[in-house]
């Protein structure tokens, strides 16, 4: 098992947001975390990488409990995180943004170089010296993913990668994610868009109001239109 989350509860101040979340991701798998606005997808990801201060539960990454580790250690262990808000360093150039993400090679994960990433996202290779602040939303989205891959993660949490992108860019994004998978990166991707999720995922969880209410393969999800209609807005 690549990642195993058990009994995860998270709070923002007095507000209880996540209730007993349980997730599993196998080696090389792409798993979708589906849910509506405010369901708790981002909070789940932020909790896993230690960016939510108040949380309880067990988070096992490659067999080790990382729930008490600080964010940078979790990430250095090979668990990459791509935030929903992208959070590009707007004053830094594309190459400098990549540099911030750079980490040493890891034995159990694919090794990414600048050139490999520019091949994966050709748009970026044409703007190596452009400041991040002067890029379109789609280009920024590619840059955040590339930046995280520079850390040579063995698993990546991708928070709504298709949000606000044009259909053409979404297509490129699907290709990129499939390439990542082929290279051997395990991926958890949060989505509201079921069509997008279906193109890339092996399995899916549905989260609603902070609780996991479904887990299974894409085929199993398709066999339950009732669940799909109740918890996802299409």
């Amino acid at each position, binding site marked *: 098992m690549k990642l195993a989350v058990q009994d995860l*509860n998270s*709070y923002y*101040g*007095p507000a*209880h947001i996540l209730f007993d979340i349980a997730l599993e991701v196998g080696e090389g798998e792409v798993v979708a975390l589906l849910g509506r606005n405010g369901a708790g997808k981002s909070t789940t990801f932020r909790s896993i*990488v*230690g*960016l*939510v*201060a*108040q*949380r*309880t539960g067990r988070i096992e990454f490659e067999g080790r409990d990382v*729930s*008490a580790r*600080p*964010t*940078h*250690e979790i*990430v*250095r262990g090979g668990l990459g*995180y791509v*935030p929903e*808000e992208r*959070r590009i*360093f*707007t*004053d*830094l150039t594309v190459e*400098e*943004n990549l*540099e*911030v*993400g*750079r*980490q040493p090679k890891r034995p159990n994960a694919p090794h990414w170089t600048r050139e490999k990433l520019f091949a994966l996202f050709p748009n970026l290779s044409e703007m190596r010296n452009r400041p991040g602040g002067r890029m379109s939303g789609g280009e920024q989205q590619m840059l955040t993913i590339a*930046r*995280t891959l520079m*850390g040579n993660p063995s698993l990546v949490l991708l928070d709504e990668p298709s949000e606000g992108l044009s259909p053409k860019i979404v297509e490129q994004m699907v290709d990129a994610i499939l390439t990542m998978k082929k290279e051997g990166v395990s991926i958890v991707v949060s989505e509201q868009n079921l069509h997008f999720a279906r193109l890339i995922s092996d399995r899916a969880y549905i989260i609603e109001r902070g609780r996991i209410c479904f887990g299974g393969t894409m085929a199993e999800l398709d066999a339950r239109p009732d669940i799909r209609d109740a918890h996802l807005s299409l």
Partner: protein
Amino acid sequence: MAFYVVQFLTGLASAASLFLVASGLSIIFGVTRIVNFAHGAFYMIGAYIAFTLTDRFSGAFGFWGGIVVAAFAVALIGVLVEMVLLRRIYHVPELFQLLATFGLTLMVQDLVVLIWGPDDLVGRRAPGFKGAVDFFGQAIPSYDLFLIVLGPVVLGILWLLFQRTRWGVLVRAATQDRDMVAALGVNQKWLFTSVFAVGVFLAALGGALQIPRDAVHHAMDLRIIVEVFVVVVIGGLGSIVGAFVAAVLVSELNAFGILIFPKISIILVFLVMAVVLIVRPWGLFGKPEAAARRTPGLTVNPWRPLTQNERLGALAALIVAAALPLFAGNYALTVGSEIAIFVIFAVSLHFLMSVGGLASFGHAAYFGLGAYGIAFLAKMAGLPMIVCLLLGPLLGLMGAAVFGFFAVQLSGVYFAMLTLAFAQIVWSIAFQWVSVTGGDNGILGLWPEKWAASPSHFYWLALGVAALVTCGLRIAVFSPFGYALRATRDSLLRSEAVGINAKRMQWTAFVIAGTTAGIGGALFAYLKGSVFPDNLGISLSVDALVMVLLGGVETVSGAVIGAIVYKALNIWLVSQTDLSKLVLGAFIMLIVVVFPKGIVGTLEMLLQRRKPLAPPGPTILAKPIESAE
């Protein structure tokens, strides 16, 4: 003509050290968001250690080696300070950070005197740069030429460091979004420590390089820090190029200001700063800051009306206080008067902080102006005491009106730095304009008239005014103006949307607070029988802040209790030890780190222990995360 060129070059040479110190402050602020008040202290230690080393080891190697080693040694001290003190206060409001680092400055001032003695130390001349270069009959010290070259060289090195190294890229990234940097696997702790070390290194180098030009003394920290604040306000916090340009600008203004206004040269710097603030509030090279971080007074609303019991309690306390002359001696009454006066002072600052959300670091300016107002009216115009008491504080009002107008254009640390710089400007005027203010000798012989002359009468006067002022400010708080002001404090944008002119509100609050402080200062002048520049000095401004914090910013009675406890403690301490700054500095750091809620706040918290904790069961508390915005 040659004279002006030489004057210009002297200005450029002075800019070098100023730039080093200011760029260090800017770099540290960029990443850690801490305005390091202790930066002047590091500059001073750098100078002292360099003095000792260059004195001990002879030759060119001894000199230049001594300067570099001194800078590294101080950087090491900086690392220690970062790990022991700053790591505990990265998440607290910026006011507390300024105070804690100010506490450190106080401690260093006493330590330096303990180690190196109180006298000025004249350092060695730089080997190889001892002579002067002749320029059309005017002599330019060759060391000045060295410094003129050094400034741009350091700027270039810093540029390379930030543009061409991985460390520089990480620092620039963290300046923008430090949580994202952590989420990419970078250890922030290490990054913060290294940034702090570099900043402190620059400050210490700036100090060490000054020794061939200036005597080393134990007040050089405050002088440089105020100039540095002016530089970063003009240049823009966080910008190294801005620090360079503004350092040159300020140094040139000083160099030529002496020629234009020999007595009050600082006026010129002030005028330029005022223009910059109006045109570009975030400095020439700065970037508009996102909304300022939480200011104390935001989480709890201290301005609830008193309950019936609390009112009776306050009245009873007042009656007990008024009965003091029945059993206390003259000394106790004088101390009592002083405490009452400081209650006025603290209450006025508390008003500004908790209602206006504005933490002034130069509130003593208005206190001192009130005192000088009395001195002018009584000594020069010979007016009766009652008239003086009524009119004297108007000088505080005028000062607050002028400076407040500029200060409220800013918020957060900028506001704090600006108010501090203003206060220091007023102090310099009082200090330099000897013909009017008496300079360092002050103005003496201001005794109250007969009706208020006896200690008990004066005590009753001070107590009565303190009670009136406290009530008056509370009435203001519950007036429509007070509500509008609190709305402004809680959400600037929203209050403007409902038609409140936020800046005008804050300005009014500033003027009210300044005038009230002036009332305190007026009484203080009569109590002491004299006024001195110290009455508007930085340490008095910080005293006021500590009183408010000690009592608790977020409480109703905090300022009053804080003033009483602090002033009593202070008077006692000064009578007990020569190292009062050392003790006081440690005390300030202790409050910030351990009791940020102050006396009253801590008591209230202890009383409310029954409150249930939010997350049930065992909680994993990762380090607190600041929101990225």
